[in-house]
């Protein structure tokens, strides 16, 4: 709590005690009306002067239907018709409600800042051979950072010395530490748990993961949801309507019955109920909490509108490689012709694949351990690679490459990704690779199958696709798609889905960007996913785990439920109080509850969104 808020609270409590004591005293001791009026006038001045001054300022600005003004009119009106204690109650409790609103908003702002406690304060870098402490913003690409146990890594980089277990919880929500050693890439915001590592900066601070996440979460609530726009639009008409009704209630029955005091009092009660703040505040507060709760789980939601769309999601479309699977190939089998050993085949393949960054090449190099050097390598686009040294020519690639060079291939691989290897026109054998499933993909998809339809899209051939789809259990699969066809597929699926449902697409690659934009909710893999995908997505899973989609949907549904509860509850109570006032009896305490009490309850309910 800030000092200012604290001071105000103490002041308000003193005023409240004074007020309640006066009410009690005048209840038991009868005093002349002017003494009672004088005492309450003092309390009113104490509690209300700030509000009245603001109301006057706003009238000068042409803001007639402002809550300060409405409360001022209602309370002064109450005073004039002799309802002293009720008039003062309106002001005192209005101030309490206002105080609580600011407290709650401040608290939830702060709790998100704490949840997102990933901002590094300083960093130690080596400059001119000496270690100096600098602000993260001052780090240049290529600087060497020294990060000790418990310190946050300030910028994204690569480890060039030391090894440590990294706590990545703040970024990914994953509690198991990740071991890193020389050559591994590390993200800013991670914390080494033991040991010292030297990290070479690959990004400036503002381009690093931490800065991007903070920016994203802070600005997430700028993209407003429909329900948010609805409440502000509603508030705009609600107040004038209620004030209009108040005017009618104050005049028409009075003219008929001649009982001016009673009906004016009822009209004033209406004014107290006419403030829309409870509804207007509780909605963005709920979204803010929901976005915060998601980010603790390593799920970044880029806007309130995404929460709304996620809550209605019914069709879940996934890219295969890198999303359902790890996108890392592993050599599963080496098949050698009779004249060669498996090591010969793998060695020849590795000699060709040196220097290539293709995931399959990486898996071959990893399996081979080391590659023979000295070959001149050329790439044959879409087919494979050719390596030459002296008189030797090694070919390594797909069937088409073998056919083009009239190499007779023994038996062909079935349903797996593989490269064929030939030396000097003679077939040596093949290396089979497989992309592993992510450990949680099947679980995530089976949860989503209970909610709606799951679909897998892939550029791979039908056989490989079927194998994966069978093992994770997606309900529909489209294979051999080019990137553009993925978008067409999503559009067709979007047309086929039932009304009111939204379509979620999860992907990771640069070529998934158009699909991410086309889908109602685009989900990108934030860990290994490309920057383009992360930027075009609405939701980013920091831990590349599809269970994040399930979790995000759950948080979104909870948030939307609370938003609806608040709108219905706040409106319901206000309308009920207006009906009671108009048809039955008027009581300002009831109106104060409908205004301040409802605000408090709605705010407390909204704050539940931030709970895990």
């Amino acid at each position, binding site marked *: 709590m800030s000092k200012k808020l604290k001071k105000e609270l103490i002041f308000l409590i003193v005023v409240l005690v004074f007020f309640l004591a006066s009410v009690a005293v005048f209840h038991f001791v009868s005093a002349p009306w002017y003494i009672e009026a004088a005492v309450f006038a003092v309390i009113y001045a104490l509690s209300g002067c700030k509000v009245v001054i603001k109301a006057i300022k706003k009238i000068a600005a042409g803001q007639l239907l402002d809550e300060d003004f409405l409360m001022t009119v209602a309370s002064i009106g109450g005073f004039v018709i002799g309802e002293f204690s009720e008039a003062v109650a309106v002001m005192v409790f209005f101030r309490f409600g206002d105080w609580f609103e600011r407290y709650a908003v401040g608290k939830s702002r702060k709790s998100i800042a704490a949840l997102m406690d990933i901002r590094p304060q300083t960093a130690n870098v080596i400059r001119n051979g000496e270690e100096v402490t600098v602000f993260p913003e001052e780090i240049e690409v290529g600087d060497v950072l020294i990060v000790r146990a418990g310190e946050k890594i300030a910028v994204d980089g690569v480890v060039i010395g030391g090894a440590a277990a990294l706590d990545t919880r703040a970024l990914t929500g994953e509690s198991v530490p990740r071991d890193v050693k020389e050559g591994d890439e590390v993200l800013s915001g991670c914390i080494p748990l033991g040991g010292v590592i030297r990290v070479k900066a690959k990004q400036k601070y503002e381009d690093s993961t931490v800065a991007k996440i903070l920016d994203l979460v802070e600005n997430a609530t700028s993209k407003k949801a429909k329900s948010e726009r609805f409440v502000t639009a509603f508030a705009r008409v609600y107040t004038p309507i209620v004030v209009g009704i108040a005017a009618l209630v104050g005049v028409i029955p009075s003219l008929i019955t001649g009982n001016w005091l009673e009906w004016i009092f009822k009209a004033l009660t209406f004014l107290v109920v006419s403030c829309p703040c409870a509804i*207007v505040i509780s909605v*963005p507060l709920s979204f803010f909490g929901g976005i915060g709760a998601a980010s603790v789980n390593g799920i970044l939601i880029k806007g309130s509108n995404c929460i709304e769309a996620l809550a209605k999601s019914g069709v879940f479309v996934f890219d295969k490689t890198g999303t359902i699977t790890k996108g890392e190939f592993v050599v599963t089998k080496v098949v050698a012709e009779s004249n060669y050993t498996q090591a010969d085949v793998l060695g020849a393949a590795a000699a060709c694949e040196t220097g290539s960054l293709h995931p399959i090449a990486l898996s071959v190099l990893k399996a081979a351990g080391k590659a023979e050097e000295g070959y001149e390598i050329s790439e044959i686009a879409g087919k494979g690679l050719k390596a030459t040294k002296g008189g030797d020519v090694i070919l390594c690639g797909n069937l088409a490459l073998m056919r083009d060079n009239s190499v007779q291939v023994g038996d062909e691989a079935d349903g797996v990704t593989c490269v064929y290897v030939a030396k000097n026109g003679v077939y040596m054998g093949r290396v089979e690779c497989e992309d592993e499933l992510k450990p949680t993909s099947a679980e995530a998809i089976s949860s989503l199958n209970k909610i709606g339809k799951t679909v897998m899209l892939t550029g791979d051939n039908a056989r490989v696709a079927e194998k994966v789809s069978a093992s994770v259990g997606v309900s529909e699969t489209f294979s051999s798609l080019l990137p553009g066809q993925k978008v067409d597929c999503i559009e067709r699926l979007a047309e086929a889905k039932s009304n009111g449902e939204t379509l979620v697409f999860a992907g990771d690659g640069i070529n998934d960007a158009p699909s991410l934009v086309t889908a109602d909710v685009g989900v990108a893999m934030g860990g290994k996913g490309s920057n383009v995908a992360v930027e075009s997505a609405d939701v980013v899973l920091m831990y590349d785990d599809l269970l994040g989609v399930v979790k995000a949907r759950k948080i979104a549904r909870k948030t939307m439920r609370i938003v609806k509860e608040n709108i219905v509850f706040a409106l319901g109570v206000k309308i009920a109080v207006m009906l009671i006032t108009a048809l039955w009896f008027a009581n300002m305490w009831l109106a104060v509850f409908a205004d301040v009490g409802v605000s408090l309850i709605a705010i407390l309910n909204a704050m539940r969104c931030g709970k895990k």
Partner: protein
Amino acid sequence: MKKIYRLDEIDCANCAAKLERAVGKIDGVKQAEVNFMAQKMTLEIDDSRAEAVLAEVKKVCAKLEPDCALIG
């Protein structure tokens, strides 16, 4: 050009919505977005007379929300 202000002591969510509407109506402001929870106002304004427009924005803000300070 894009301009972001921090709003200190903005009163209530409804006031934020009113401010957003009023600032959005200013000639030269292409788009105004007030984010109550983040206490930020993001403006998209005409480059040619940015200074005059921002002065007008400050005036409107001081009128509607006397307690609220524009920072940045």
